[in-house]
């Protein structure tokens, strides 16, 4: 018998602390596999955020830095400038990246730091128990929008990929999801594209992944994926917003 699927060694053996069905686990695997396939794992440095993935460093067998809430792109800048031959990526949630870390992500992107940002957009603050994120859908009830997000006073979901794409420097900006296997394959491709560009020192790459948070959405994982498809994707359309080196066509 030949193994057709097993765990990559870039993932550690530690069981994750994520809730049952949480997409974080899948995305971790796709990153790990990409680093392995590109043969860069031994010189990769991850930057974990504050958020559910704060312990990401426990799940990857690579060097890791645990950054302050929202500051991963600044931390990654410091690391990459110091170790330009490393493959440096941040892994950030929507509270981390789109709220407190707004300035850091925009300016790292604008400087064209040669890093990769994996952005987990699950429309909620998972770690802290379900508060409203900048990407929370209008009408959605959360701990801090108990009557539903009101666009008039709390604003509408922020589309970060679209914002990043207005900047000149970023090389690759794309939005994907892992709501089914077909999309998971595309996500893997996107992550690999991003790391390939970095390996080739071609600049800043940004992969937004629309994800579920079954726990704080109050849904079973399988229902959550359905809900994501029906409600999140219309607001966060999948697609590539910038690809200055045409890597998707290559």
């Amino acid at each position, binding site marked *: 018998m030949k193994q*057709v699927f097993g765990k990559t060694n870039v993932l550690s053996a530690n069981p994750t602390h994520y809730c049952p069905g949480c997409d974080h686990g899948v995305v971790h695997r796709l990153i790990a596999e990409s680093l392995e396939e590109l043969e860069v794992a031994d010189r990769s440095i991850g930057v974990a955020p504050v958020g559910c993935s704060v312990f990401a460093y426990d799940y990857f067998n690579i060097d890791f830095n645990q950054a302050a809430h929202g500051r991963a792109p600044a931390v990654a800048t410091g690391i990459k400038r110091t170790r330009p031959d490393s493959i440096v990526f941040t892994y950030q949630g929507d509270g981390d990246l789109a709220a407190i870390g707004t300035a850091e992500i925009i300016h790292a992107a604008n400087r064209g730091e040669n890093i990769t940002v994996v952005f987990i957009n699950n429309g909620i603050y998972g770690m802290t128990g379900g508060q409203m994120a900048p990407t929370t859908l209008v009408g959605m009830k959360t701990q801090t929008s108990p009557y539903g997000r009101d666009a008039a006073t709390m604003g509408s979901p922020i589309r970060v990929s679209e914002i990043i794409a207005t900047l000149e420097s970023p090389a690759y900006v794309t939005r994907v999801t892992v709501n089914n296997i077909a999309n998971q394959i595309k996500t893997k491709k996107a992550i690999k594209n991003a790391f390939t560009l970095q390996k080739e020192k071609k600049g800043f790459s940004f992969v937004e992944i629309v994800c579920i948070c079954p726990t704080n959405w109050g849904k079973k994982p399988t229902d959550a994926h359905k809900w994501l498809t029906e409600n999140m994707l219309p607001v966060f359309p999948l697609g590539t917003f910038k690809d200055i080196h045409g890597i998707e066509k290559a």
Partner: protein
Amino acid sequence: MSKWVINESLCKGCGICIERCPMKILAFAEHLTPKGVHPSSMTDESKCTSCAICAKSCPDVAIQIYKEEK
């Protein structure tokens, strides 16, 4: 050796693999793991195509898939 191998200690019983298996041959086991979870289990391995959709769907990389070598 099985085509479908699960590490039950990793399974959190999320049910995604069960829903996504195209052959519909996975189901929650009767028993509980020490974590208090009914893990995913194989009901009819003969039907398994080793497509690995279940394994790739698993957020906890709990499943390994093997295929008969030709």
